[in-house]
């Protein structure tokens, strides 16, 4: 494997590991806040015991989230040096503000959450808990502003004098519609994860006939919060689909395995076997109209298919090469105003010319065949996206059903009477993680071959370090993280088995 593949594998592995811990932190922090609020308002100590018990599990998970998050902050520099140089002017700011505004809040107040029960008044401790939850959620906001910019790079322009992208409109970066939709979708997914976690473990206690008082109350909180969150994930996931449809047409077409542009409104493929080589989808089962309505919010706008998007990419490569030629001229004669005008006119397509760097260094001399290959390289892995997306959406609907039943049973005070439901809740425990990881695969793998959509191809973003170094660190991280994950799961299972009495009893 070359350095590009190793670096991508390392980023994928470390990011997917990191996101095993993040959604639970997001969801559980808010659930802790809700439970503690009930405690402060009612004064019933069982609610404080719940906060302390779920808090222990929160802490075990949080440590892993922090540990795996450290790598993420520095990995852009270690493994994606050209990426960092090329877009750091835009991308670095949200990461730094995340530290200033969010992570500091979260990491400072988690100390008080665990250590200051006896040193703070009830209200003060509640404030600390909510500050922790707020920090956690703001952290997700800034990370998704950064990630949203990778999907939809607004408010920035290429500067030939510094050979990089620079911010022109920070407000556009901040209020990027893709980032806003992704933020709400992602934190809602975190809330679903936290709610399923609490629901499943409470179901386990009820199945065993243990800790019924804490389990039933926890389930009620999880069911109410979970149903709202699960609806929000699906509705705002749809909003993500719409905003992606505005900008990432290739991603939408690949998710739908839609090779040809259909007459509007396009149909939605429920099932099929996409065939990359033959550029067709076998055994497709389609529902008319649905995709067109989701992606364009209209009955008459077309959703372009993959083949047409490749043709468009081919024209953008030619346009991008004009920009690239202008850069070469400006390097020879920095004051050449006409070359700067050409560059300015075509700089939006510069990234498409850079796709050719995979085939040759002197891309200004690229052959027609190489341009065709570069245009074809803009198609992501259709079968992976097609299935990841469908499984994720299916799970989203399953969570709505699960929480709806839980909510209904809780309202009728029958939570502990229906064993099939309790088993369904317990067995659903791993599903939100599966859905979240698949969501990231759709978002990031679906953006390929771009690291910054339309601006910078992924293979150009890597560092110039030795591939053996990356192989070493990749193996190191995987072994290290796997060992720590095993410890994490071992401790979680142990403390779940010990139950609330162990934590709060004496």
């Amino acid at each position, binding site marked *: 494997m070359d350095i590009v593949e190793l670096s991508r594998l390392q980023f994928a592995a470390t990011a997917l590991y990191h996101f095993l811990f993040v959604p639970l932190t997001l969801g559980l922090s808010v659930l802790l806040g809700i439970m503690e609020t009930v405690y402060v308002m009612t004064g019933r100590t069982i609610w404080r015991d719940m906060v302390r018990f779920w808090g222990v599990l929160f802490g075990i998970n949080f440590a892993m989230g922090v540990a795996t998050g450290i790598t993420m902050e520095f990995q852009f*520099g270690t493994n994606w040096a050209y990426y960092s140089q090329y877009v750091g002017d835009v991308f670095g700011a949200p990461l730094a503000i995340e530290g*200033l505004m969010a992570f500091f809040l979260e990491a400072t107040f988690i100390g008080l959450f665990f250590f200051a029960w006896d040193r*703070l008044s009830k209200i003060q401790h509640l404030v600390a808990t909510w500050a922790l939850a707020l920090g956690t959620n703001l952290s997700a906001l800034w990370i998704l502003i950064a990630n949203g910019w990778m999907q939809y790079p607004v408010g920035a322009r290429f500067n030939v004098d510094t050979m990089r992208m620079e911010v022109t409109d920070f407000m556009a970066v901040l209020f990027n519609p893709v980032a806003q939709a992704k933020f709400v979708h992602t934190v809602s997914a975190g809330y679903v994860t936290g709610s399923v976690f609490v629901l499943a473990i409470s179901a386990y206690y009820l199945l065993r006939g243990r800790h019924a008082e804490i389990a039933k109350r926890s389930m009620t909180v999880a069911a109410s919060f979970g149903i709202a969150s699960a609806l929000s994930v699906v509705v705002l996931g749809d909003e993500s689909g719409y905003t992606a449809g505005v900008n990432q047409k290739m991603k939408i077409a690949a998710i739908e395995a839609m090779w040809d542009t259909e007459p509007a409104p396009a149909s939605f493929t429920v099932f099929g076997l996409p065939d990359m080589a033959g550029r067709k989808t076998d055994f497709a089962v389609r529902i008319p109209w649905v995709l067109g309505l989701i992606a364009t919010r209209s009955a008459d706008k077309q959703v372009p298919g993959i083949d047409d998007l490749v043709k468009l990419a081919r024209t953008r490569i030619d346009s991008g090469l004009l920009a690239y030629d202008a850069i070469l001229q400006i390097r020879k004669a920095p004051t050449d105003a006409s070359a700067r005008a050409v560059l300015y006119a075509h700089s939006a397509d510069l990234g498409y010319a850079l796709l050719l760097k995979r085939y040759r260094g002197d891309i200004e001399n690229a052959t027609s065949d190489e341009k065709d290959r570069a245009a074809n390289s803009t198609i992501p892995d259709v079968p992976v996206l097609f299935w990841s997306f469908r499984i994720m959406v299916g799970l989203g609907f399953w969570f709505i059903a699960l929480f709806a039943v839980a909510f209904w049973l809780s309202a009728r005070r029958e939570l502990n009477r229906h064993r099939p439901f309790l088993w369904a809740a317990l067995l659903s425990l791993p599903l939100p993680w599966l859905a979240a990881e698949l969501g990231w695969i759709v978002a990031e793998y679906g953006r390929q071959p771009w690291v910054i959509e339309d601006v910078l191809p992924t293979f150009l973003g890597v560092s110039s*370090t030795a591939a053996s170094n990356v192989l070493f660190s990749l193996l190191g991280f995987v072994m290290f993280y796997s060992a720590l994950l095993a410890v994490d799961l071992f401790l979680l299972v142990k403390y779940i088995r010990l139950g609330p009495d162990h934590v709060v009893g004496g």
Partner: protein
Amino acid sequence: MSYEILRLIWWALLGILLIAFAMMDGFDLGTAMLLPFVARSDVERRVAINTVGPVWEGNQVWFILGGGAIFAAWPALYAASFSGFYLAMFLVLAALILRPVGFKYRSKLANLLWRATWDWTLFVGGLVPSLVFGVAFGNLFEGVPFGFDADLRFHSEITLFSLLNPFALLCGLVSVSMLSLHGAAWLNLKTDAAVQRRARGVMPFAAIAFVLLFAVAGFWVWHLQAFQITSPAMHDGPSNPLAKIVVASTDGWFANFGVHPILWLAPCIALLGALAATLLRRTPLLAFLASALVPAGTIAAAGCALFPFLLLSSSNPGASLTVWDASSSKLTLEIMLGAVVIFLPIIIAYTAWVYRVMRGPVTADQIVRDSKTAY
């Protein structure tokens, strides 16, 4: 505000963030390093660990923020230093990954082998970053071999073994002695009985080691090859590190100190801080404040000596990264300055509140009482 002034402010902020990291996370790295020496029984170990338990997580954010701020304000430095020092960074990250889990998981089981294993990971998690950060500073003075192509793609011939040269290792030891002193001063402040006695006993050794090592490093720097920019000053030009000429200088790295003698204050603060910390060790709060001055003086001295260089290229001096050609755009520096001005005072305020809430020493009695919830 001019681009030149913004770059100067961000150079100062880079130093301030590094100093804040060394002051705040420094004492818990130092505490972890001293763990096997100042705490023997399990309860003593837990006393030492719980002095930093409520605060280390916030302290570590200074490191994360430092990384983020370098990315945002000095993207070329972020790209070059972290990819150039690849394996060294991997070592630091691996060590820092051990800390959150080490703190959190250690006392979750009563098994002695389990606890001893985590104690060792905490020790390594304290020692390795302290050493590597010092080694990195040493390499800043010596320069590392790197350059850029016309697309500003960074390339380097740096290896882990080239980084571990004698001068850099000396700087690593300066850092280890400095943070040991700071950790001992913290334990002296936050513990009682045997742990406090042993931590207090460490302080004179750490302080003397620091003073001697720092003096030797300073003498060595005197003899290192220094560089200077000879092309016309372009302090508000575009951030392109290929547009200048850099040549070997005969004035040495102390040239800035000659022009501005007030800069001598920085190394003097470092040395006097270390001596004051050990002399005042019977008044723990004053001793801790004195030891906090040591990283401030040390980092300020190094930064002022190197100015305007951020990362010196030994193979291709013209490609060195400097304050004038490695920054973000003017707009990004302005936005980030705004964010710092708003949020830094808020961070300092709530951090101060947390330290106030958690004030007072950690005792063995407390650990036994809160055995299930303490670290």
